[in-house]
């Protein structure tokens, strides 16, 4: 069990996740963090309980015959059994592993220069998800944000002006944060990131490359 996660999902994001109103790319990052973090799973349960109480207050009369129609539907349904617990996991928790079809070796990485690699994951419009591979000790080009960027560490660690982020840690960066994440020495760093707006690189060259790499 991971007990060292220090950076968690904010209340605001967790409530929106519980409500089911976030774009797919954010859902993917949060579901992956939740797969690693008991604390956020319990907090999610509390926000879902709030959703249950909103539902309790949303009464609206049903038409006649609803129950009979529902029982007719049930006749054809096979019961769903409790799933077996899964075996021990690798670097990618299940929600992410399903997107890439396995672990880091299954990712179709594309070089970004300086040994940094990325892979855009297919998600619906509204936000973009990508995996980032940063060699130990290497920096990611300095960038700011127009929207919200979520970055989840899956392997290794990185540090920026705000703090250190290790496996399971989630950084939530908004428009105010201009940062240069640097991968820690020792182990190459793999992150899952999602943003609801294109990144804004400060150096000229990466900015020109932005349309090419869709970042």
């Amino acid at each position, binding site marked *: 069990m991971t007990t060292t996660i220090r950076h968690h999902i904010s209340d605001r994001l967790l409530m929106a996740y519980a409500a089911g109103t976030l774009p*797919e790319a954010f*859902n993917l990052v949060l579901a992956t963090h939740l797969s690693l973090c008991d604390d956020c799973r319990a907090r999610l349960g509390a926000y*879902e309980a709030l*959703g*249950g109480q909103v539902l309790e207050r*949303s009464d609206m009369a049903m038409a006649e015959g609803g129950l009979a129609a529902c029982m007719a539907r049930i006749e054809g*349904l096979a019961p769903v059994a409790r799933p077996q617990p899964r075996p021990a996991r690798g670097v990618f928790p299940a929600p992410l592993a399903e997107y890439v079809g396995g672990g880091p070796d299954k990712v179709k990485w594309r070089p970004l220069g300086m040994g940094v690699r990325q892979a855009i994951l297919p*998600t*619906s419009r509204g936000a973009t998800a990508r995996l980032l591979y940063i060699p130990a000790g290497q920096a990611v080009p300095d960038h700011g944000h127009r929207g919200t960027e979520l970055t989840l560490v899956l392997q290794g660690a990185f540090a920026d002006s705000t703090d250190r982020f290790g496996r399971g840690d989630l950084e939530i960066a908004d428009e105010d944060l201009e940062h240069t994440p640097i991968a820690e020495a020792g182990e190459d760093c793999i992150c899952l990131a999602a943003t609801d707006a294109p990144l804004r690189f400060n150096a000229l060259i990466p900015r020109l490359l932005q349309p090419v790499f869709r970042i």
Partner: protein
Amino acid sequence: MTAEAGEDWTAHLLAVRDRQDRVAFAALFQHFAPRVKGFLVKSGTSPALAEECAQDVMATLWQKAQLFDPERASVATWVFTIARNRRIDMARRAARPEPEDLPWGPEAEPDQHAALELAQETALLGDALARLPQAQRALIEKAFYGDLSHSEISEQTGLPMGTVKSRIRLALDKLRQSFEGARG
């Protein structure tokens, strides 16, 4: 089972889960189907489609009754998550990856006390929601109906939820206890 004490929906759903009890299911349907319908209509679904989906959600409740764990969620909470997922499917707004369904430790003996405490905590959360000033309650409801973007939630509410926030924390404590109990 008096109206004052509130129906024990957990017992009803366990009867469905363990005995396919149709009388218990009918009672669950009478209570929750109209709420699922209302929830979906307030989320922007047409009444006719919401009616259809409410039947669908309740059929899913029957079908997935084996997955219900009263230490993790009250029936209202569980119905909400099914209805929410149905709404996401309908909107095709976004596929929703679900967190890995981690086991809660070795198969522990069901702890009726923990389940009861969670149900009570959840009911108190509902009371706190009911007592909020109308404007604040409306914001929370809009957040769950999907009428607010997540940035609007932060700008407009900053989650000034007062008693609701402290009840969320207490419900969370119960969930954590049951979590730790299961993990041993």
